[in-house]
Structure formats: structure tokens, C-alpha cells
């Protein structure tokens, strides 16, 4: 009989080994699933784990897709460390697309051509404010009305999606778009500068890495960051120390809303350059997985962001080359998180064989 025995101290090693173990288990289940679908498991796994790294074009796509995941997950890490359960980053990201895209669209329709150094920051500011505004609804209702931030932030995702639909079917619809629900293409002066000629990779990736450093400093070197984490780990201690729970709540939600909004703004002028009803592919939810796989740590999030981005690209390759259903990516992502949480048990417990002679509980 196996028995879980609490460790005296959480294991640092297991904290890092657990995501690797979860990934290996996911790969094993994936291989079985490929076999069940009548595909060659080796080919399938190569598609998901090797192909995305095979050439410069694929790697640039991988980094491109990792960018919003990393940026959103950084904000979520601040939230989860403060025990603020913002699971509606998807909605904040969509509002970032509306905020940033709205500025870009306004500049475009007004025929205002600003230099890139002015236009791009202006658009991104619009994105950040959009995301923050959306997160502030959750913060306000939690703070003043005691409403669960989990449910409010999640409900707001559905509202945000309808808001995007409303804008592209209504006020922002391109009159010359043959009736398609989409906005005009943004003017080239608002586009995010490219990072690598000949690829779609834009400077957003550098911005993301800069933010990793900033969030690291905030979490581990700034007093406010420390206060937030005390509030998350030991609310009673935080109250006793006089740290305001309300300030922590607002700080955490403004940071994560702002970052999700920034990610949306960058996506709006970095890749799609117009707004359509399908601007998001659930990146805000994938970012939650990135955040946990990255151990709520800025540096871990970079690796996790690339891993989940790899799975998205692998899924697309699997669809186009092996005829696998695209939904497979979602299965693997969900599976990875479930397995990760299970493996995380090893951080706090060790598994022991219970001998028949030991006293039973």
C-alpha cells in the first residue's frame, strides 16, 4: 500500500522536476492517443516536440506565439501569488485588442500618420488601459461587493467576446469589407516593428523579456511585491502587519489586467493588424497553464510560454500534415495542467510503501 508522507520542507528539486515529469507523462499519453487514431506515434510526437524547432521560420513563429502567453502569464503569476484568482485574462486580453486596435483604427480612419515611435506606444497604451479597465470591474466588485473574483472575471470573458462581436459587426465594421465582420486594416505606421526580417516575429518578444525582468524585480526586490505575496501566503499575517488587502487586490488585478491588455495591443498591431470576431484563440486560458507550468516564476514562465507555444504550433502542423484534429492541442494542454497538479503533490509529500505492520490510520 502506498502512503503519502508529508515532507518537513517543500522540495525545491521536485518543484522543478514536476513540470518535466508532467510533460513526459503527457507525451506518453499523446503517443497512445496517436496510436489509437491510427497515426505513427513517433511521427506525431516529432510533430509536436521537434518540428517546431526545426528551422528559423518555425522558431520565429514559436517565439511569436509565446510572446502574448508570456506577457499574460507574468501578470497572472502576480495575481496567483497574491491569492487573487483572476481567471478572466482572456477577457482582459480581448479588451486590450479593442483598446489598442481601437486607437490604431482611429488613427487609420482619421488618416493621421504618426511616426512609429509615437504611434506604437500610443496603441499599446490603449491596450493596457483597455485591459486595466476590464480588470477594474472585477477588482471593484471583489473589493466593494465581496463578489467572487473567479466568477466575475470568468463571466466578463463572455461579455468581452460579445463586445468584440458587437464592435466588428457594428460601429467598427469596414464599410468596404464586402459585409465581412471585420475592421479596416490598420495603417502601416501603427504596426509593431519587425524583429527579424522575413519573419512575422516582432519586437513584442523583446518587450516580453524586458517585462520578465521587471516582474522579477517587483516580486523579489520591491516591498509592495513582498506585501502582495505575504497576503497570498498568510492573509492573517498580512493583516497583522497592516498590509491592506484591498490595495493588494487592486495592485494584482491592475498589473495582470494591464499586462493582458498589453498582450492584446501587441497582438492587434503585431500579427492580425485588424480586428475580427476570431481575434483570440483562447490565449488567455492557455496563459493560465503557462503560469502554473512556469511555477509562478518569471523565468519559468519564459520556458513554459515557449513549451505551450510549441504545442500550439505542433497542433497546427499535425492538422496540416497528418490530418489530426486541431482540438488535440487543447486536450494536451488540459492534460498537461491536470498531470502537473498531480505531480506537484511530490513537492509537499514523499511516497512511502506502507508496511503491513505500521499502525493504520
Amino acid at each position, binding site marked *: 500500500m502506498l502512503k503519502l508522507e508529508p515532507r518537513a520542507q517543500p522540495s525545491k528539486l521536485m518543484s522543478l522536476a514536476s513540470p518535466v515529469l508532467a510533460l513526459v507523462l503527457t507525451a506518453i499519453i499523446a503517443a497512445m492517443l496517436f496510436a489509437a487514431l491510427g497515426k505513427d506515434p513517433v511521427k506525431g510526437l516529432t510533430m509536436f516536440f521537434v518540428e517546431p524547432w526545426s528551422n528559423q521560420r518555425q522558431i520565429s513563429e514559436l517565439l511569436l506565439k509565446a510572446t502574448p502567453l508570456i506577457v499574460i502569464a507574468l501578470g497572472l503569476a502576480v495575481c496567483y501569488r497574491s491569492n487573487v484568482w483572476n481567471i478572466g485574462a482572456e477577457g482582459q486580453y480581448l479588451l486590450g485588442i479593442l483598446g489598442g486596435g481601437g486607437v490604431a483604427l482611429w488613427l487609420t480612419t482619421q488618416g493621421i500618420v504618426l511616426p512609429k515611435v509615437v504611434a506604437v506606444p500610443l496603441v499599446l497604451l490603449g491596450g493596457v488601459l483597455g485591459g486595466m479597465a476590464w480588470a477594474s470591474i472585477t477588482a471593484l*466588485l471583489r473589493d466593494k461587493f*465581496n463578489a467572487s473574483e473567479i466568477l466575475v472575471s470568468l463571466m466578463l470573458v463572455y461579455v468581452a467576446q460579445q463586445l468584440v462581436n458587437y464592435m466588428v459587426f457594428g460601429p467598427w465594421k469596414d464599410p468596404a469589407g464586402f459585409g465581412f465582420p471585420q475592421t479596416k486594416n490598420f495603417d502601416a505606421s501603427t504596426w509593431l516593428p519587425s524583429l527579424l526580417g522575413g519573419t512575422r516575429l516582432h519586437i513584442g518578444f523583446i518587450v516580453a523579456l524586458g517585462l520578465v525582468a521587471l516582474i522579477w524585480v517587483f516580486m523579489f526586490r520591491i516591498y509592495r511585491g513582498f506585501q502582495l505575496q505575504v497576503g497570498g501566503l498568510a492573509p492573517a499575517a498580512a493583516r497583522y502587519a497592516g498590509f491592506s488587502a484591498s490595495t493588494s487586490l487592486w495592485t494584482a488585478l491592475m498589473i495582470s489586467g494591464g499586462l493582458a491588455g498589453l498582450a492584446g495591443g501587441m497582438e492587434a498591431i503585431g500579427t492580425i493588424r485588424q480586428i475580427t470576431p476570431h481575434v483570440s484563440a483562447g490565449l488567455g486560458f492557455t496563459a493560465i497553464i503557462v503560469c502554473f507550468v512556469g511555477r509562478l516564476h518569471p523565468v519559468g514562465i519564459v520556458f513554459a510560454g515557449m513549451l505551450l507555444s510549441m504545442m500550439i504550433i505542433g497542433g497546427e502542423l499535425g492538422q496540416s500534415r497528418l490530418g489530426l484534429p486541431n482540438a488535440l492541442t487543447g486536450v494536451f494542454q488540459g492534460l498537461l495542467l491536470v498531470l502537473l497538479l498531480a505531480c506537484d503533490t511530490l513537492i509537499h509529500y514523499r511516497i512511502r510503501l506502507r508496511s503491513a505492520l505500521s499502525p493504520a490510520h
Partner: protein
Amino acid sequence: MDQIALLIAATLASGTPLAIAGLGLLINEKAGVLNLGAEGMMLVAAIAGFAAAFTTGSHTVAFVAGAAAGAALAACFGGLVIWLNTNQYATGLAVSLFGYGFSAFVGVGYVGQKLADRTPFEVPGLSQIPFVGPALFKQHPMVYIAIVMIAATVWFLYRSRAGLVLRAVGESPESAHALGYKVRWIRLLAVVAGGALCGVAGAFLSVVYAPLWVEGLVAGRGWIALALTTFATWRPVRVLLGAYLFGGVTMAQFALQGAGVNFSSQLLAMLPYVATIVVLAIISRNPTWIRINMPASLGKPFHPGS
């Protein structure tokens, strides 16, 4: 008048899955477990139910398949949070994300498929009464079963010994453990029962309410059902009333559109979600009231012997 009767009928139909899922989650939460995986369980159950109805043509088989799918996923969730002490929020969220992906994956072949037509169910005699008949007595049997289930749960929770034990486990697992009750097994049972009910609700959506399968068919109803337990301050009858209220709000958008109200359909589609947020905020506003009614150990793990 006919319009109003149809609106009432539609409200009952759209409130029923919320009521059944809300009831399942209420049983979970009465035992102290918060399952954020409701949306995922309902999605997997919806496709399981749809596939079963598509193959066999039987609604009964579809509901059984849905319940089994919901219960299976709930058992995984229960195993993780009850025995491995994983974080309940994160694990529930993981189940929801997995359920979304898995149902989309399994359901690929069922998109656009139609179920065989069935003669609509009518309560003999009563359905012939003008106005009341079409409003209340021409529903799928599950609509009435849901009401019976609510009544049965009231009896179970407040009048039976097993219900008392379940509530004790949710209020004070330490005391229940000290009295010799197997807290973890009781919690698992509650979680599995809750999952089965969420599964029935999911199958109702894909087999009776929609009736079709598309990716993400449940469209947030799992989360609304979660909010319902709070609105209802963990009372079964209020879950039913809340569910009908939300069913009514969902239907109101179609009624408004039908009445020729010149308002964007996208903005009207926000209505159920906005209503959920507003009601949640109003109900939660008094922290003391919530604290009195909420099962005291809700969301808190229990480790016997430590």
C-alpha cells in the same frame, strides 16, 4: 397570450440544465468541495450524451452516458483534490480546460449531425388546458424530473441521516472524522454525485435543448451554475428559482429581438452573463450573510491524522 405561454415554456427549458447542474454543485459544496470543473464536466457529458443519442436514439441512454461521463471526470477531480491535496481552484480550472479540449476533440465528427426527430412530450390532460398547458405541461420529462430532484435533495439534506453526515463533513470535517465518519470517501461520493448531475445537465443541453453539438456548446452555463449556488445561499429550492430566473433572462433576449426591439443582438447576448455578475454582486454584498450560509470548510482541504 400564446407568446407569453411560449416564453414561460422556453424559460423552464433553459432553466432546467442550470437547475440540475446547480443542484449537483450544491451537493459538492455542502460536503466542502468547490469544483470549478463544472463547465468541463458539462461539455464532456454533452458530447457523450449527444453521441449516445445519435447512436441509439434513446434519451435515457443519452442521460446515462452524460451522467457517467460527468461522474468519471468528477472522480478524477475528487481523487486529485481529496487524496493528493491539490489546490481546488487550480484543479477545477484544469478540469474545465481539459473538458473543453477533450469534448472538442471527441466531437469533431458530430458537428452538423442531427438527432432523430421525436414526438414532443405532453402531460396527458393537463397539456390541453389553454395557456397553462402550453406554458407548463409540454416539456421534456427531464424538466419535471429536475423539480423532483430538487425536492428529493431538500429531503435528503435536511431530513435524512446521510444528509446530516454530508453537511457535517462540509461544516466541520474534523468533528465528522472524530465521530468515525470517513470524510474523504464521503467527499468523493458527493463529488461524483455532483459530477453525475452536471453530466445530466450537459446531456440535456446537447440532446434536448440545442439539440446539436458544437465546440463549447455549454457556453458558460457551468460557471453560471457555480454562481447559482452562491445566489441560492446553498439552499436547493433557491437554486431552482435562480435557475428559472436565469433561464428567463436568456430567453428575454430572444423575446426582445422577436418583439422588434432595435438593439444589437451581440449586446443582448451579454445579458445572462451581465445578470450573473450583477446578482452575484448584490447577493455577496453582505459578507456576514454569506459566511453564515456557506459551508464552513468550503474549499479547504482535509488531511486526517495530521
